[in-house]
């Protein structure tokens, strides 16, 4: 679908960490970096799409307006998007739709977060109608609880071992050494992972991504507008933000139960398969066309699931792919050259945008010590609470 391409003119990030400052500061740093990268100024922007954070008060819920005000009101149009971990991709999709509809030429997409220490907790107050509140109250079910249920299931179905999970961390930690925006830049061994405390059996502390502060921003433009600035931009060819299809038979955060398959048989493709497949269909390509992928390693075990969900291998073959080094830098299809969530920790509304920033640098050949040689097609994917997920395909 080349006639639906939009150009990525600029990308920028505020380094991930635990900086303890207001999320708006991070967002503006990333936005200015993306504008500089594009060779544009704030006055060139027609539309701002903000990815919302639900844990920073009202300004977090109206991110499009918050970042516009911080850059200086100019009468531009705004949108604010919440889709849990996929918020950034949904904001990107909103900007893309405005461009493709001819409603604007240049759009700025920004996501930023400031996170608490430790487990993500629900928004405060007594809310006994909110499943995200109730799961903590009635079950004590944290996010790693769900990650661990998937990990145990993978061990049962495919014979994955805790050492396999640890090898994902080892690989991603190595990749992240060369990423100046990563929070953790330290080599990790299997022994390090296995010596870290169990948080949610079978997952250990080093199997589970941290929560981080950080920001990412992207300047998008119509192909016509882009031609005035560059001859060979990285292009977005597909964005998928599909919901599950009923009945979703894999337990979803923050739910208490899956859908019932008593009346309707489960769909052919699982939700996570469908997220990537919708992007492949939109782009008119398949997994065999990929050079690089950024997947959502909320846990090490989940990265293995993603190999199968995005079609890099058949179900049950992800461990072999990992052990053979095919998903490491230098392998057939490097996954998470950025270092992934293992090296970043999750800054929710920024994370899906950070994935696209990384793919952009990879396709430009600007990724330095973590460069995937000759990369020209990249895919990102992620999944979050309440049936949200996204996948973005970029080409050059």
């Amino acid at each position, binding site marked *: 679908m080349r006639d639906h391409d939009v150009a990525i003119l600029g990308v920028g990030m505020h380094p991930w960490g635990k900086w303890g400052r207001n999320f708006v500061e991070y967002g503006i740093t990333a936005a200015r970096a993306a504008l500089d990268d594009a060779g544009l100024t704030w006055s060139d922007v027609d539309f701002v799409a903000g990815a919302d954070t639900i844990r920073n008060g009202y300004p977090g819920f109206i991110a499009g307006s918050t970042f516009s005000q911080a850059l200086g009101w100019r009468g531009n149009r705004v949108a604010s998007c919440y889709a849990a971990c996929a918020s950034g991709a949904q904001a990107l999709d909103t900007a893309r739709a405005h461009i493709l509809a001819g409603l604007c030429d240049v759009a700025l997409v920004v996501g930023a977060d400031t996170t608490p220490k*430790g*487990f993500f*907790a*629900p928004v405060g107050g*007594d809310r*006994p109608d909110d499943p995200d*509140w*109730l*799961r*903590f*109250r*009635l*079950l*004590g*079910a*944290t996010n790693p*609880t769900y990650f*661990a*249920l*998937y*990990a*145990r*299931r993978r061990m*049962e179905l495919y014979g994955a071992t805790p050492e396999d999970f640890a090898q994902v961390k080892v690989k991603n930690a190595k990749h992240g050494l060369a990423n100046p925006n990563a929070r953790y830049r330290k080599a990790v061994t299997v022994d390090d992972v296995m010596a870290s*405390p*169990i*948080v*949610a*059996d*079978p*997952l250990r502390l080093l199997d589970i991504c941290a929560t981080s502060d950080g920001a990412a921003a992207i300047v998008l433009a119509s192909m016509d507008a882009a031609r005035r600035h560059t001859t060979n931009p990285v292009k977005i060819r597909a964005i998928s933000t599909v919901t599950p299809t*009923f*009945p979703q*038979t894999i*337990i979803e955060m923050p*739910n*208490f*139960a*899956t*859908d*019932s*398959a*008593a*009346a*309707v048989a489960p769909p052919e493709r699982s939700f996570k398969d469908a997220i990537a497949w919708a992007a492949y269909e939109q782009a008119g390509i398949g997994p065999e066309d990929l050079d690089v992928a950024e997947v959502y390693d909320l846990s090490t075990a989940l990265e293995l699931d993603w190999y199968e969900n995005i079609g890099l291998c058949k179900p049950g073959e992800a461990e072999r792919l990992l052990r053979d080094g095919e998903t490491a830098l230098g392998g057939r299809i490097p996954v998470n050259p950025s270092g992934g969530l293992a090296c970043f920790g999750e800054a929710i509304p920024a994370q899906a945008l950070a994935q696209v920033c990384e793919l952009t640098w990879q396709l430009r050949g600007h990724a330095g010590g973590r460069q995937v040689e000759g990369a020209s097609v990249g895919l990102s994917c992620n999944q979050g609470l309440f049936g949200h997920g996204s996948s973005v395909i970029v080409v050059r």
Partner: protein
Amino acid sequence: MAAVDRPKTKPRVPAVDGWFTLDGDDGPALIGSRCQRCGTYSFPKQLNFCPNPACTSQDFDEVELSRHGRLWSYTNNCYQPPAPYVPPSGGFQPFAIAAVELEAEQMVVLGQLTAGVDVSELHVGQDVVLVVETLFEDDEAEYLVWKWRPIEPDATSGSAPRDQETHDA
């Protein structure tokens, strides 16, 4: 404090209203709903709309879900979860959490495993039965929640003759 005579029993109330029964001839049960038109189950109960996209029914029955199921997966909490989780009165102790497959309903339902169950005793596919246990307490009441208790196929003695019966059945 020590001089005050406190009542020995506090009221025992569900930690959430309308999600499970406390007793019954066959023991406690989760309360779900079933669509009168297409037969889709929901938990928690859903009495306003059917999650099946092909169904526009507005008529649902409240139903008790299967009391027995099989472990689809399991894990534990080695660290105390953040609020609104409330630790038990004796302080936080690691506890196990189950995802349980219910055959008739064709769905997976979460729940804590009963206190004291260690993940090393568990395996995927294992039979479990629904029970009600204390979740936490305060000065006013003891708050109850549903939990899953593993059933050992070869259990010959101990706590639960009914479990063994149902396992054999």
